[in-house]
């Protein structure tokens, strides 16, 4: 690093700040790319389950018919994964804005990450292990 660069950087914070900034740029980019994909996934999903079919007909056998085709399992899994990542990262922005106390902020974030991971695992297990013909 050049002397000129060092003189403009706050002392004691160089490597950490650099990687944090990279992460925030990446996160900013991710929100936009995942938003674009979710635009189609989420709106198609909602239309299928609430507009083109009545919600009362989306029973186990409805799911069984849909998930017989691997395309829809992949579709739903992508919606699960991107929705959780995009939503949890968005929630992280919101916590950064409103939870000012550093210790509280760390605790709230830890809680929401654990919850998101747990629900991601639960959702993935549901999609992968579902065997439709049991229910009829």
């Amino acid at each position, binding site marked *: 690093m050049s002397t000129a660069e060092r003189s403009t950087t706050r002392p004691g914070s160089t490597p950490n700040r650099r990687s944090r900034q990279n992460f925030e740029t990446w996160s*900013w980019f991710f929100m936009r790319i995942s938003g674009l994909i979710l635009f189609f996934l989420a709106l198609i999903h909602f239309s299928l389950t609430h507009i083109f079919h009545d919600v009362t007909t989306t029973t186990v056998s409805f799911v069984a018919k849909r998930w017989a085709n691997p395309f829809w399992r992949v579709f739903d899994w992508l919606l699960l994964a991107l929705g959780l990542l995009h939503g949890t990262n968005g929630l992280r922005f919101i916590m950064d804005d409103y939870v000012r106390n550093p210790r509280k902020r760390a605790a709230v974030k830890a809680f929401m990450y654990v919850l998101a991971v747990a629900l991601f695992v639960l959702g993935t297990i549901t999609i992968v292990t579902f065997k439709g013909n049991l229910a009829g």
Partner: protein
Amino acid sequence: MSPESTLYKGKTGQWAFVLHRVTGFLVLMFLLLHIVDVSMLSFPRIYNEIHALYGNVLMRLFEVGLLFGLVYHALNGLRVIMIDFFPGSIKNEKSVFYSIFSLTILLTIIGGFIILRPFFTGSVH
């Protein structure tokens, strides 16, 4: 987060930003709940029973609210992406915002009509 993450907020109006935040948060809360109710697929009878609840009037109204939130967040998200990736592509930000809001209302009314119709025709309670 520091202002970097919400750079667009001063430019396009506080309301667009607040509503984007509130709808994003509410859609996420619904997603969390929805992952749990769908996980009941492993217990088909429980799944069908829980799922029948989505057909009652209160839940249908809630679904119309979800539609509003999702459509607004999706359209406004596209607006934000346009502004960030193609600066200058949106000339009149205010009128673009009003168009998005009107389109959201219109789609919510049409979708809401379809979602609530079984209630009016008496096929649900």
